[in-house]
């Protein structure tokens, strides 16, 4: 099935060295797959020309879906006909990226039949990415995927594939069940995921604690990050153990507490939990001795995005603390209100974080019916430019709406 072996002197250089080589992966696939072989050829050409040889994507998809496929066409189709179309398929991964060998093999079988045999495990958003196939293979691939129980992920102006850290499956610090919530949200928003109807993309990311192992705060429109409200759990004996084993508790633990709320007298650790900002540092440093409290839940933040085009944003606090238990009604009510407001008032290609900045956070909160709290700001305003909406009139002493 394979075509002539290509000469790839530049890429060959990238087979050297001890880090696993993507070139080897492509070559392995290229041995039996003409798409992979032409990809190798075109990529070598890019290395020579120092430029991408892909054309601006076109819109392709599967029946009834508006997202999930990224269309891609070569700008050298004569030379590399097997990648003249080379669309990727974004497949919604199982929450937490857990697999069995069995299901992985079945996925491979599908992709062997219908595509390049190359994948990304996984894409930056979290999808399992099937990297490159022709337009007419999309529908058959989709059908086999759904038969296996998989569905497409997001692309375009839709809800993107939610993703999460492994949470309660393997981490002692998970303050809520990230995988359960991810699965729930993915199922709840199937329509929004598959049929783009927003001003721009919307991403959910779930981390079980403030360590934020899926970088939710940096790259999701709604970042749901576990935290707790009560006292850090302390195992005194284990603290002593750490101290004995050479941990410099004063310098490395207490000295790095951002809230300056810890004290160490050489024997016992004292935490002013009302002042603790739940940063995780002391817990990270002594996992056997300290643990998040028992009153656990999450902080919901909103609006992160990459820099295009007004500058990058981190998410900001929207709901300082929420208990996250099925059926998650409080959360979905909130999301629905935001989606409605943004869908109606957002400009084209305006992410929700930019939208909030444009209309003002105060107005945004008012519109979605959330009370402002000081947790939402790093600090109150420094400028005196308040848009008061009312003033008193001479005669009436009543309010007037301006």
């Amino acid at each position, binding site marked *: 099935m394979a075509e002539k072996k290509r000469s790839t002197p530049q890429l060959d250089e990238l087979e050297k060295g001890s880090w696993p080589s993507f070139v080897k992966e492509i070559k*392995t696939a290229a041995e039996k797959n003409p798409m992979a072989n032409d*990809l190798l050829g075109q990529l070598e050409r890019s290395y020579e020309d120092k430029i991408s040889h892909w054309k601006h994507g076109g819109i392709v998809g599967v029946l009834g879906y508006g997202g999930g496929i990224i269309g891609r066409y070569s700008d050298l189709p004569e030379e590399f006909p097997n990648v003249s179309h080379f669309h990727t398929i974004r497949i919604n991964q199982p929450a937490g990226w857990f697999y069995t060998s069995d299901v992985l093999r079945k996925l491979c079988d599908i992709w062997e039949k219908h595509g390049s045999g190359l994948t990304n495990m996984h894409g930056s958003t979290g999808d399992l990415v099937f990297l490159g196939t022709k337009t007419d293979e999309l529908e058959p691939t989709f059908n086999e995927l759904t038969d296996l129980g998989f569905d497409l992920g997001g692309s375009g102006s839709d809800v993107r594939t939610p993703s999460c850290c492994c949470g309660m499956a393997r981490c002692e610090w998970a303050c809520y069940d990230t995988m359960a919530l991810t699965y729930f949200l993915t199922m709840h928003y199937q329509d929004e995921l*598959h049929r783009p109807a927003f001003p721009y993309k919307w991403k959910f990311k779930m981390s079980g604690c403030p360590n*934020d192992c899926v970088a939710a705060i940096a790259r999701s429109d709604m970042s749901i990050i576990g935290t707790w409200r009560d006292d850090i759990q302390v195992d005194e004996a284990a603290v002593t153990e750490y101290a004995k084993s050479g941990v410099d508790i004063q310098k490395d633990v207490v000295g790095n507490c951002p809230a300056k709320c810890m004290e160490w007298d050489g024997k016992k650790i004292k935490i002013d939990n009302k002042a603790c900002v739940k940063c995780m540092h002391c817990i990270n440093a002594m996992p056997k001795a300290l643990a998040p409290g028992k009153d656990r839940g999450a902080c919901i933040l909103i609006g992160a995005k990459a820099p295009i085009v007004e500058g990058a944003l981190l998410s900001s606090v929207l709901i300082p603390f929420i208990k996250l238990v099925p059926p998650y009604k409080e959360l979905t009510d909130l999301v629905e209100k935001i989606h409605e407001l943004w869908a109606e008032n957002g400009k084209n290609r305006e992410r929700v974080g930019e939208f909030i900045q444009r209309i003002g956070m105060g107005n945004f909160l008012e519109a979605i019916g959330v009370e402002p709290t000081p947790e939402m700001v790093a600090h109150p305003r420094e400028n005196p430019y308040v848009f008061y909406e009312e003033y008193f009139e001479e005669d009436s002493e009543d309010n007037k709406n301006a």
Partner: protein
Amino acid sequence: MPEVQPKQKRKTDIGPPHYEKFLPPIIKENYGKWKYHEVLKPGVMVTVSETGARLYTVRAGSPRLLSIDKIRAYADLADKYCNGYLRFTSRHNVEFLLTDESKIDPLIRALDALGHPVGGMANSISSIVHTQGWVHCHSSATDASGVVKAVMDDLILYFTEMKLPAKLRIALACCLNMCGAVHCSDIAILGIHRRPPKVNRDRLKATCEIPSVVSACPTAAVRPVTVDGQPSVEVIEERCMFCANCFTVCPAMPINDPLNDGVSIWVGGKVSNARSEPMFSKLAIPFIPNNPPRWPEVVEAVRNLVEVWARNARKYERMGEWINRIGWPRFFEMTGIPFEKVHIDDFKHAGTTFKRSTHLTY
């Protein structure tokens, strides 16, 4: 080993399979009951449950771009060492989930034989989060996988050992769209364009809406014009800062350019809330031309940053925390990177980045 049964007719909106199908029994039994973890050696961790159960994780580095052959090889290893259970991480490494401690070392040897180093845990450098580059994206100002491979070849000992002051997270994005958390990385490698887009008039007429192209430009560098009686656009070159947003909405304004595309390097971002609040990465090296196949100048620059930080940071100090303590003047001095006009912000909130105190070192 659980099995997934194939189904019969066209289905839509079924969502992903439920994750429970893929969890090993030890996880199902101890879900939410984990008590603590311990990193036993590079890339190997045990998570201990309240029930006493012990789950071992072995993490191996990955190029992320995997052939189905490699995935099958992973599947074989999983079958052999851990009843078929494995997962991938948020930084695209592969993790094998074991219950039998004695199988750890044989698994590590097998992974080594497959060419996948074990490591990336605790105070190490984990895999580089990255994007498509010339492998699949039309936007890219540099390749992704190639730069990553070259840099990781050079830094691999930091992956397989745990001798750094803290975690160090490197990420690469091939253009300003910054797919991935590049903007909040200890070290970010970012593809950038430096030449204004060219206007392909015929194609523009055929494929783009002029008003949306004009409004896509944040600096009003794109202006509507009439050429030979036909509506088109022009680019006021000195207003362009190469964001490529016009290209994103209109393919007739290509910005990719072999001579002027390249790589910039950013430092000091972080995502976690541990100790300090999350931070954006800041510009360190404005421009390194693309030099495939191994981008030696980029490799060298990244190594220098890692080493200066590793030598000087205190325990637990991430790159950005270290810089905040010593100050940017000393950062530039210690790394030998020249400070230039382009380092000074001149975008929307530029004024908030000026030094508005006398807290200076000399």
